[in-house]
């Protein structure tokens, strides 16, 4: 009955939910993501839509708060009757919505929720949770592998945000792989979300004299900490993850991050990426953040699933998503049956050269 009602009501639109932070300290990413969704939906609709219908996004703010996320999920599935949900952009909000999704039988494609437990808990895959990004262990391992094998680093230091799940996850897996490869972690220093001064930690790192410093946190803090590191006379190579790439980083710390390496989800030299980036910049007069690229691929996954399912039915879409095998702008996306992760997605190693993100090579962790 649910489906019938929906059909009579909205003959020609397919409602897709979006959730993420429009306020709070993650708002930069959330707002960009929602804007990107709107833009991409417009494009798709201009080209005739999907299954002959137009796509419509209903987006709500989660503040990055788990409680709010649950409310939003209930609202989207219960009240707005969306066929699938895009987002959210943090693991802490993606994990608690699974029971809601399961009850409503609506699939969710998370954009940058990298915690493995978003899709799998206790070895069991959650039927309605998907994602387009690769996961923390993978990213951490890639970074460590690259540091040890390609940069020939022996000693590494880690600076991380103890109160952030992403940061804690990546540093954990970086450490694990790096030590396995025979390297040594000479310093592991923490700070707390909201901190702006990292010199005490960096001074300590400096005296440990590492070859590389792994800094898995968002670019604002990267900019601050790398500037401070250089100020203190630290010359080690800096490394980071997919939270680094942003025009902002260059404005804020161009010299400090020169020569650093990043494990990224996207190859910025790809032509498709350029189109999207420019279109966004033109439309919103802002630079696109990483979320924009990932949500683009999430939408591709969704559209592909809808087309294969042949109708905009939430359960059928969820089924179809399980057999996704496409190539998005962030790489190959083949959904793993037991993980719901994009398997075999290669990471792009990017180096900062003269204030540009220069693609180096594709790299996958040989675990």
């Amino acid at each position: 009955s649910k489906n019938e009602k929906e059909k009579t009501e909205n003959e020609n639109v397919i409602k897709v939910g979006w959730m993420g932070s429009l306020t709070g300290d993650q708002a930069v990413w959330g707002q960009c993501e929602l804007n990107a969704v709107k833009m991409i939906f417009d494009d798709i609709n201009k080209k005739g839509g999907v299954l002959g219908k137009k796509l419509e996004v209903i987006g709500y703010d989660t503040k990055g708060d788990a409680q709010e996320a649950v409310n939003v999920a209930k609202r989207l599935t219960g009240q707005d009757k969306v066929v699938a949900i895009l987002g959210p952009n943090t693991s802490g909000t993606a994990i608690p919505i699974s029971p809601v999704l399961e009850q409503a039988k609506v699939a969710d494609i998370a954009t940058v929720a990298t915690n493995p437990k978003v899709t799998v808990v206790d070895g069991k895959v959650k039927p309605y949770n998907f994602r387009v990004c690769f996961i923390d262990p993978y990213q951490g391992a890639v970074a460590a592998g690259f540091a040890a094998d390609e940069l020939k680093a022996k000693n590494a230091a880690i600076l991380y945000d103890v109160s952030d799940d992403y940061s804690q996850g990546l540093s954990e897996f970086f450490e694990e792989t790096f030590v396995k490869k025979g390297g040594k972690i000479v310093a592991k220093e923490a700070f707390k979300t909201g901190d702006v001064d990292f010199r005490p930690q960096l001074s300590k790192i400096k005296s440990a004299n590492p070859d590389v410093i792994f800094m898995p946190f968002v670019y604002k803090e990267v900019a601050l900490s790398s500037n401070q590191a250089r100020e203190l006379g630290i010359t080690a190579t800096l490394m980071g993850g997919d939270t680094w790439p942003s025009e902002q980083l260059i404005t804020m710390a161009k010299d400090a991050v020169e020569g650093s390496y990043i494990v990224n989800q996207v190859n910025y030299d790809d032509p498709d990426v350029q189109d999207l980036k420019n279109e966004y910049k033109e439309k919103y007069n802002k630079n696109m953040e990483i979320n924009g690229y990932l949500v683009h691929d999430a939408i591709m996954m969704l559209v592909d699933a809808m087309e294969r399912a042949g109708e905009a039915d939430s359960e059928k879409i969820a089924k179809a998503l399980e057999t996704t095998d496409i190539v998005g702008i962030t790489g190959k996306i083949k959904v793993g049956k037991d993980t719901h992760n994009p398997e075999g997605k290669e990471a792009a190693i990017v180096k900062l050269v003269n204030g540009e993100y220069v693609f180096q090579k594709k790299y996958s962790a040989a675990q």
Partner: protein
Amino acid sequence: MDMYYIEGILILSGINLMTVLGLSLLTGFTGMFSFGHAGFMAIGGYATAMMTVKYGWPFIPALLIGGLSAAVVSIFIGRLTLNLKGDYFCIATLGFGEAVRLILDNVQYFGGARGWPGIPNYTNLTNVLVINIIGIFLLANLIRSKYGRNMIAIREEELASQTVGINVFKYKLISLMISAAYAGIAGGLMGHYMTFLQPKMFSLVKSTELTIIVIFGGLGSISGSVLGTLILTALPEILRAFSSWRLVFYGLAVIVIMITRPEGLMGGYEFTPSSMKKLFSRIGKHKKNPAEDTEGGK
């Protein structure tokens, strides 16, 4: 409106209400202002989840353990901080709340900052409702007893309370313990509703929200706490359509209520049969209210 969605809001209101009730005892009735109650929620949440997940206990006994552990921790904190006055106590509790979060961020046994997923979904509207009714019943009984009145006396005038034989420290501690226990149980409910716990959920912002609710509802009024919780949990949901403007309105609403109704919604009043009677008789007479533009002389 979809029932499923409304049910969700009600459950969350109920969970918040449980903490707010406790906080109302501490802030509204005993006059102590806490910025750390999210910390007690966190303790209760993790303790409850530990009992159900790691030791396989049934939900209700586990919840009691959650409440108990928060209360036990509150004894330690109380011993150290209850003699502090006003803002000093407030900052000390803020420190406590942040400290709890910081410790949990580092305890890998509970998943650290990355959180603890896979907690069974035991919380539902029925048990939240029943627990809240019990909570209100117990609290209302407490307030109407010498215990509650002693706390109110302490709020009004500490030195005078001492000289009428009230052991101020003891009653403050009792108040803190009970309020911590309520928060602990709320934390347990929350963990088993979200099926996930993460230290981030129990941030300073959460503590702040709770305190705002208590004062918004009206100090020293249980009905005010209930009403305040319902309104302030529902308000952001109603404003959801305004996306990024919604917290702007929320902030504005808080200010407007505070300056137009400085007693909070229900300051000092309760919904009881007798007060309702009084209220109606007053509405009848309320027509002419002479000037109120004075600044108090004494």
